[in-house]
């Protein structure tokens, strides 16, 4: 009895030690980034040779942050990224989950072939289609505040539309939906629900876990966009955060400012992640359905 308790206590301690070690591996770069953003460049470079790199010691100030705002339109970049990312995540999750719903719950000719084709696109790297896609969007029409225009370059929608249909998101939803009991859908059909009502009032409310997962993955992918926005935005007005990072590597590189900028643009990701994590846990608690 005493032996097993001691042994289990030991194994708990080991487990925690391991978890702490793993957490540190992930946390240290972030601590380093934030601490460095508070230090002048000379001290920053000197501290990298010691543990001071992770400590708020020496000449601490917010100067780098002010400098970063002077060097680049940081607020604009963050605004652009959040706008493009949130619209894409919302629209993409909505449409991809509906596509998945139809792949799983509706019977239509060629369904399985189409699904296989969609999944197959997962293996195509974006770089291979970047140039053709650029040529395509350059010739597409758009109706906006300026009436009918041709060519999508230097807009928000050129950063949004190509990313809405997403095989990975569809795949995640398909996998989740397949595991849901089919008779829920049938019960709802008998209760008089239209297909859209089945989707919106029965399936979506019990899909919290997959929505959270897909949203986080999509958010990160969109927020980290670099190559595509660099190709399609020549004007500063539409550029997102990752493209904005270039501003800090022109002429003289100020590492403190780079760190300040990175700290700033990491914030939205953290906020989004924490919010979703709470929603995720709440959804499991209320429906008893795990991801």
């Amino acid at each position, binding site marked *: 009895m005493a032996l097993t308790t001691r042994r289990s206590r030991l194994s708990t301690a080991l487990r925690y030690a391991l978890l702490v070690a793993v957490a540190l591996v992930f946390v240290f770069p972030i601590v380093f980034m934030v601490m460095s953003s508070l230090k002048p460049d000379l001290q920053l470079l000197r501290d990298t040779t010691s543990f001071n790199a992770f400590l708020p010691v020496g000449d601490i100030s917010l100067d780098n942050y002010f400098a970063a705002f002077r060097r680049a339109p940081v607020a604009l970049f963050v605004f652009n990224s959040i706008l493009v990312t949130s619209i894409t995540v919302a629209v993409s999750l909505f449409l991809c989950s509906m596509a998945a719903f139809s792949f799983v719950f509706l019977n239509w000719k060629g369904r399985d072939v189409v699904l296989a084709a969609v999944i197959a696109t997962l293996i195509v790297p974006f770089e291979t289609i970047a140039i053709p896609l650029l040529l395509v969007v350059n010739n597409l029409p758009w109706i906006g505040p300026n009436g009918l225009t041709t060519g999508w370059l230097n807009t928000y929608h050129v950063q949004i539309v190509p990313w809405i249909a997403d095989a990975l998101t569809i795949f995640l939803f398909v996998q989740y939906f397949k595991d849901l*009991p089919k*008779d*829920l859908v*049938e*019960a*709802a*059909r*008998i*209760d*008089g*629900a239209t297909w859209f*009502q089945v989707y919106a*009032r*029965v399936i979506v*409310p*019990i899909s919290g876990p997959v929505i959270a997962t897909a949203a986080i993955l999509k958010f990160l992918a969109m927020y980290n966009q670099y190559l595509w926005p660099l190709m399609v935005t020549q004007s500063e007005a539409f550029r997102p955060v990752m493209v904005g990072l270039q501003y800090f590597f022109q002429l003289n590189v100020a590492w403190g400012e780079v760190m300040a900028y990175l700290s700033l643009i990491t914030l939205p990701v953290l906020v989004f992640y924490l919010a979703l994590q709470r929603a995720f846990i709440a959804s499991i608690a*209320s*429906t*008893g*359905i795990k991801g």
Partner: protein
Amino acid sequence: MAGLALKNIHKSFGKVDVIKGVDLTVEHGEFVVFVGPSGCGKSTLLRMIAGLEDITDGELWIGDKLCNEVQPRDRRIAMVFQSYALYPHMTAYENVGFGLTLAKTPKAERDAKIREAARILQMEHLLDRKPAQLSGGQRQRVAIGRAIVRNPEVFLFDEPLSNLDAALRMDMRMELSKLHQDLGATMIYVTHDQVEAMTLADKIVVLNGGIVQQVGTPMELYHRPANLFVATFIGSPKMNLIEVEVKETASGMITVGSQTLDPVAIPAIGAVKPGDTLTLGLRSHHLTLGGEALTGTVALVERLGNETIVNLEVAGGNALIAALDGDTTIERGSSLSLGFAPQNAILFDASGRALDEAVI
């Protein structure tokens, strides 16, 4: 009001024929049970009536409306699933009222209907709970409540009791019976359990391999099974079958016998001649002490209190099961003779079809 008519209904999944031409009429207010072994197509047939499966061929009439192409929600049916299929994110109240909410029923009317259903099913105190907080029996009630508020012409049940434990199953069986009397609605009920079928049904439809074997009241199926399948499927213990040879035929009488069985004249009519091989069916409960027709060694005795089940090994390697009086004192290994009344025996021809009973 709404009865049902199935006319030559077929169902195939790809190349596999699952339902092979079912004809059936269900009167308004009838409690009909589809019974058969697992995989025989009961659920498929029920789901076609519900509109959850396409009908490959044939006609489905609900009331006086041809319903082959009608959406499930427009068929005036309600269905209770084996898994209950409750919406996990809704309370029992919302589950029961979901159909009414979708139909935009005014709030007060909806509330009244939900509370009425809850009252009938004695689950008023459960309405605020979510399915995860309910036991199996309670979920079952909610699922039935959801069907009741739709005020359907036809209730459909797919093995609704098979996830419950034995005691609860018996209670719910009686409640369903009572519910049927109170509501007076048509009910179609699927089960693989012949006891459930016998106890609930006005009319039993025995299915096997996608074909209707027999339609009739529980007593008709018990006393006059149409073929060997029905004979052995209905009734417990299973009907005893003995291979016999025709010795003699007279008007309305066929005399049969075998190594096991002393010749006996059975009142039956059929195109048979001396020398033909038939199968004799005898219910365990029709075997009695004191006859001389069948003699063998007692291989097993099961005392249930109200009756004693005896396994009897007879000549030719056959085994018979007899249900005898509870107080019978019989020892394993002893020798025993049993008799039966000829009019209780049923003869089946070589194709398994029952010969007609001769009225004497």
